[in-house]
């Protein structure tokens, strides 16, 4: 049945493709035509843009935004924040950004692990549980979600470079001044991450239920991305932005690295004792999309010559 279905769709696709090719070849012979005047001559040296509204030049911009993360494995980040910039030129600005997590919803994977993962001696160092695993105090379900790392804030200085400026026309009715910008800077990322365990000294054993508690850490990394500004009037607009925050972190709180060849094997497998520490942090290209408004002041814009 599946083979027949596949054949049917493949055959249909081929027939329609052939028809499209014939149609296309027939139409190809028709010369393209349009209504346009091609201006040549001394205008080649004329300014490309005249009397442009300079929405940025010499103005401050406050842009409250909502940010949400993409492609999260165990826990998402929904944050509220703002950027504050001063535009030195119409195409260059410097400023700061700061976002604080409103909530960190878990992914479906985290919920499924919570539901179906067995709590026993083999999973005890990696999956949150209650009990000590002895006959009198067996392992019982703890919350796996509670051990997954949360991003609590990200903030830092940054610069914006807006080389491209134009208008967007929607159905030839609504025209919006638009610019495309790239941004880059340094980010301080606040994390709530599972603390070190199993390393000896005062550290708890990784099978101890208390070892799954989260501790604060700040990661420092570069950040960058690009965005679009839509200026609906002189002082207020909308902004949509992509932001990358690449850095290493232990998102599930597992003992997954630190021993064996190149430290790529879990300590539990190599030595029989689980260790969770900085070596378990793995690199991730963390991504955010932000949307919000931008308010510029002073209110009046400059006009280019």
């Amino acid at each position, binding site marked *: *049945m599946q083979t027949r279905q596949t054949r049917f769709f*493949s055959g249909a696709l081929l027939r329609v493709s052939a028809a499209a090719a014939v149609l296309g070849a027939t139409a190809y012979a028709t010369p393209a035509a*349009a209504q346009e005047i091609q201006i040549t001559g001394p205008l080649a040296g004329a300014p*490309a843009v005249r009397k442009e509204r300079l929405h940025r030049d010499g103005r401050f911009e406050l842009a409250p935004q909502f940010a949400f993360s993409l492609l999260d494995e165990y826990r998402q980040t929904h944050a509220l924040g703002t950027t504050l910039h001063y535009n030195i030129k119409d195409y260059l600005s410097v400023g700061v950004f700061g976002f604080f997590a409103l909530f960190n919803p878990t992914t479906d994977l985290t919920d499924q*692990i919570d539901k179906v993962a067995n709590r026993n001696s083999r999973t005890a160092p990696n*999956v949150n549980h209650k009990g000590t695993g002895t006959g009198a105090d067996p392992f019982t379900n703890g919350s796996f979600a509670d051990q997954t790392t949360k991003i609590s804030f990200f903030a830092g200085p940054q610069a914006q470079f807006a080389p491209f400026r134009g208008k967007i026309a929607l159905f030839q009715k609504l025209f919006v001044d638009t610019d495309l910008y790239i941004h880059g800077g340094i980010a301080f990322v606040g994390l709530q991450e599972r603390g070190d365990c199993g390393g000896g000294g005062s550290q708890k054993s990784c099978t101890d239920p208390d070892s799954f508690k989260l501790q604060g850490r700040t990661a420092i990394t570069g950040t960058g991305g690009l965005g679009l500004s839509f200026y609906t009037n002189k002082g207020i607009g909308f902004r949509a932005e992509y932001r990358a925050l690449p850095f290493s972190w232990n998102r599930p709180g597992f003992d997954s690295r630190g021993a064996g060849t190149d430290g790529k094997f879990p300590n539990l497998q190599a030595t029989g004792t689980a260790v969770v520490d900085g070596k378990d942090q793995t690199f991730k290209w963390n991504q955010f999309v932000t949307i919000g408004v931008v308010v510029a002041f002073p209110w009046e814009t400059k006009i280019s010559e």
Partner: protein
Amino acid sequence: MKQATKGLLLGVISAAMAATLLMSTPAFAQKKKPGGGTGAAPAPPTPPAPAGAGGSDIEIDDPNTPKAPTDPAGGTTPPAGGTDPAAGGTGGAGATGGAGGICEIDPSACPKGGDIKAAAGKDVAAEVYAVQQIYALRYHRFELMPYWALTLNDQFVNHPGPGLGANFYITNVLAVGISGTFYQGLNADSDFNFQNRRATRVAVPLNEYQYNANLNVSYVPIYGKFAGFSDFIFHYDLYTVAGLGILSTRPIPVIDPDNRNFAFEAKLAFNAGLGLRIFFNRWFAADLEIRDYIYNEKLESLTLAPTQAQQQDKGTWFGESKITNNVQAQLGVSVFLPFSWEYRLPK
């Protein structure tokens, strides 16, 4: 099978109806607002350029540009005194006002009487377009779009791959076309899947792709231009695309890799997307497209049959089916054919 056939027919009929509706939509001219019409503060009237002031800026459509008397002979002979930029005269008397001042700007571009007669003899489209001077015309041109696809919404398995699209523009804004992406051998199972399985003893069913092939309809509702550094201008358009086709996928065996060996199987897939095309010249552009391929995925069964014979029975390998969205970014270029074209009218 019947349901699938009906779905295909309905899809084709819907696409044809949508295309007919779009094609029958008349073009409307935008009313010119006083002072620019785009929300800008009305600019003060430009004072007329003084006669003989060489090197002054020229506004083609500026109503304040001094009008010169029309040459009764058809404007073929530029009068002396004011048409030679080298002589310093740009606004002198005697320019051919009927040609909109082009004879003043560039005598070599000044239309001859024969040109005007030939242009007048051509068929004139009755519609007046709001945008007259389209930089990159699409009407009756082919577009070839090689691209590289990247997965946007699957953190478990990345599905990158090369692809190719081909479109034919029936109108300047409506195209039909085909596209396809090849994934086999390039699917990347993320490290975290294995780390998660090892740590939690919980496996996530994974799937990989072989190829997709699609029939598409594209519509270009938005086009315009951007200025770079206020110095150069490039043109762009935003387009929507939708279609249907097939996506060949199979599960990656993670629950029972010893017994299960899945074959690729094509599934009906609908797609819809949004794209941005930036023109570098009249036939070459860069593309960024986000497209969602929606299909019914068959996942590996999470349970094992009790006996080995049953475990080797393919009927026990599949578990639940799920409507799945494969959202991918497609980065590529567009090449329009033919490279050049003949405009029907001077304006």
